[in-house]
């Protein structure tokens, strides 16, 4: 009985201690956006190559989805020359931070 309870408690604690996913930091992400903002931060900006269409809005998008998209660009699974280059230079932590920034309502340090 005691062992079962102890095991249960330990399991619960272990689960609570493990992050579901390495959480990104919106503040750290905000300072990494310089490569993104030139296209994604400009209203109506359109890609010119390889085809012409508006770049997607990122504000409010799910962080998990943004990370998945960046990883897919980096691996080449999702093909876009510019995004492959940019995502290729990002670490997994960079991706998590950027995703956390775009998903959050944090928009940078107050002046």
């Amino acid at each position: 009985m005691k062992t079962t309870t102890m095991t249960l408690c330990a399991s619960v604690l272990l689960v609570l201690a493990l992050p579901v996913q390495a959480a990104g930091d919106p503040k750290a992400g905000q300072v990494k956006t310089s490569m993104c903002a030139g296209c994604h931060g400009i209203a109506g900006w359109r890609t010119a190559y390889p085809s012409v269409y508006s770049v997607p809005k990122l504000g409010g998008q799910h962080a998990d989805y943004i990370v998945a998209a960046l990883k897919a660009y980096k691996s080449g699974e999702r093909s876009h020359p510019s995004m492959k280059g940019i995502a290729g230079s990002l670490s997994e932590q960079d991706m998590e931070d950027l995703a956390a920034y775009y998903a959050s309502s944090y928009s940078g340090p107050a002046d």
Partner: protein
Amino acid sequence: MKKTLIILATLALGFSLPVHAKGDYEAGKAKSTACAACHGADGVSSIASFPKLAGQNRDYLYHALKDYKSGKRNNPLMAGQVQNLSDADMLDLAMYFSKQKGLTLKY
């Protein structure tokens, strides 16, 4: 004189061609029920792995659907969904979701 006529005819033709078919909001709304299961009724998905569509740029959504259909963007789930969509369906859906409140431009 003949040259002027040709120029006028060319101009008239140019004006009569739509720059880009825009899609129909109500038709898109009616067709969006299949998308709602994952992306939410109004394009605001509650599941983090499925992107929000609400407020996304119309031509980006259309482009994404076309890429899923052509296989350029390879996603088994979406490939199945778009298989039976016509070009008009994609334009309608893109129009509907782009008009919902959700995503924003963020610098």
